[in-house]
């Protein structure tokens, strides 16, 4: 997993060298990671390394600690004890895009206007290129005809698709999604995962996806991290779960 001269910590600490976009290497490293909310231990002594380009499914029952783990990886929550090294710790890291459980869309804006928040002129040659991506993703996920609809008037599934497309339009190095398909049917979930797979294959995007649907993910390739009551109880291929 790591070369013999460098520990994972050293690799991450080395910054851009450790996170060479073209090569494999750890993007997250958690060591004895624990998160406590008052009396409640949300995560207990998590040891975890996530490599660049991996597809990770974080599974577990409600309250198992999936959201907390994702928030720690995103840098939105700090560990109570132990440590986590993230790609952005050295400010030269990779770009992380989140799909939050509460989606974080602007209700008064149209779906398209919400997607425009992802238009970053530093990663797109021009707006036409961005619009091409936007239209392509909208078409694949079947929302092209509803882009002018206000988010406040949209249903749960449409909102979820907009949130996912917005994240993908950022051309992220790492995509962290917390239950991104809870309002989607099986067909849409499959289509979405095909898109994520494509991003993973073509762009090397690391995908970290929290879900409680274990049966569904068995049909995909990727590593499963299973949490139970805040503890990491399984890390391995989906077929062995």
């Amino acid at each position, binding site marked *: 997993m790591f070369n013999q001269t460098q520990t994972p910590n050293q690799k991450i600490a080395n910054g851009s060298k450790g996170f060479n976009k073209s090569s494999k290497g750890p993007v997250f490293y958690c060591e004895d990671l624990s998160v406590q909310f008052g009396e409640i231990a949300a995560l207990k002594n998590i040891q975890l390394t996530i490599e660049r380009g991996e597809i990770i499914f974080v599974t577990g029952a409600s309250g198992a600690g999936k959201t907390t783990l994702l928030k720690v990886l995103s840098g939105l929550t700090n560990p109570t004890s132990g440590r986590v090294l993230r790609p952005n710790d050295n400010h030269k890291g990779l770009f992380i895009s989140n799909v939050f459980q509460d989606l974080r869309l602007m209700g008064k*804006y149209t779906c398209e206007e919400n997607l425009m928040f992802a*238009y970053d*002129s530093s990663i797109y040659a021009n707006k036409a290129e961005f619009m091409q991506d936007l239209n392509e993703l909208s078409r694949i996920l079947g929302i092209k005809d509803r882009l002018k609809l206000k988010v406040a008037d949209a249903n749960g599934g449409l909102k979820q698709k907009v949130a996912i497309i917005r994240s993908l339009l950022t051309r992220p190095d790492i995509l962290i999604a917390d239950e991104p398909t809870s309002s989607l049917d099986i067909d849409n979930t499959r289509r979405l995962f095909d898109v994520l797979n494509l991003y993973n294959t073509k762009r090397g995007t690391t995908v970290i996806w929290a879900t409680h649907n274990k049966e569904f993910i068995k049909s995909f390739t990727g590593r499963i991290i299973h949490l139970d009551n805040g503890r990491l109880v399984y890390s391995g291929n989906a077929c062995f779960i």
Partner: protein
Amino acid sequence: MFYLIQYFKILFKSPLRGFFLFFFSVLFVLSVGQKAFLEEQFAKMIPENKAGDYFYALIDSSESYQTVARQMQALPGVFKVEILSETQIKDEVKNVLGSLQVDVTDQSLDLNYAGLKIIYTKELKPRAQELVRDYLSHLVGEGSITLGKIKTNDQLNDRRSGFISMIKTWGYSLYLALVLIFWIISLLSVRTKIAKASYLLESYQRKKRVALKMALNGLTLFFLISVGITFILGMPQILNLVIVLGVFLAGIFLHGQKYQWESH
């Protein structure tokens, strides 16, 4: 330019809030920059109460009391001369006699007098007041006039003048405080919207401190437009504008706080 466009996009999404922020920004800069001009306007708007002490004079109605009143009005130290007609005098006498339970009829009252109420200007010295009375006696003739005692201005008048003087002293400050409060309210009313948009831009674009940059661009433009309008009205007080710039900077740094989506 990116941040300025984003700032206006947010304001156009909430046009009323955006309009109020622009309006109160202009009004605030204008009010401070043109302080002297506004204070002058305040003074003009509220008439000063110049009425001082007064006395009554009864003049034989055969005398041309209206000419006398005009001449007295032109006298320095006289604020106003009010003419009380023969009928008014009769009514007043009847009131007084009635309160003393003396039964009188119009025929029995042979009062051929006109009355004048001479009101001095405020804070006229007693010597000057006496000179005015002497002049009046001389003008009408001592045998045709009866002068009443000098009375001090009534309490109501004092209260009114106190209020006017308070408005004159604090009016501008109160007005400015109100404008500042409304400016802060309008600023806060768009702050959350800017913070939310900024949060999304930071999350989905490779950008940092977006809210601060947006506010810096937007409010600086508002400030410059306001200064331009202030100059149109005349040369502003530069030091005052520097102070307003400081307030605007504080408003800009208000957007520097890290936004937590979960808390809204």
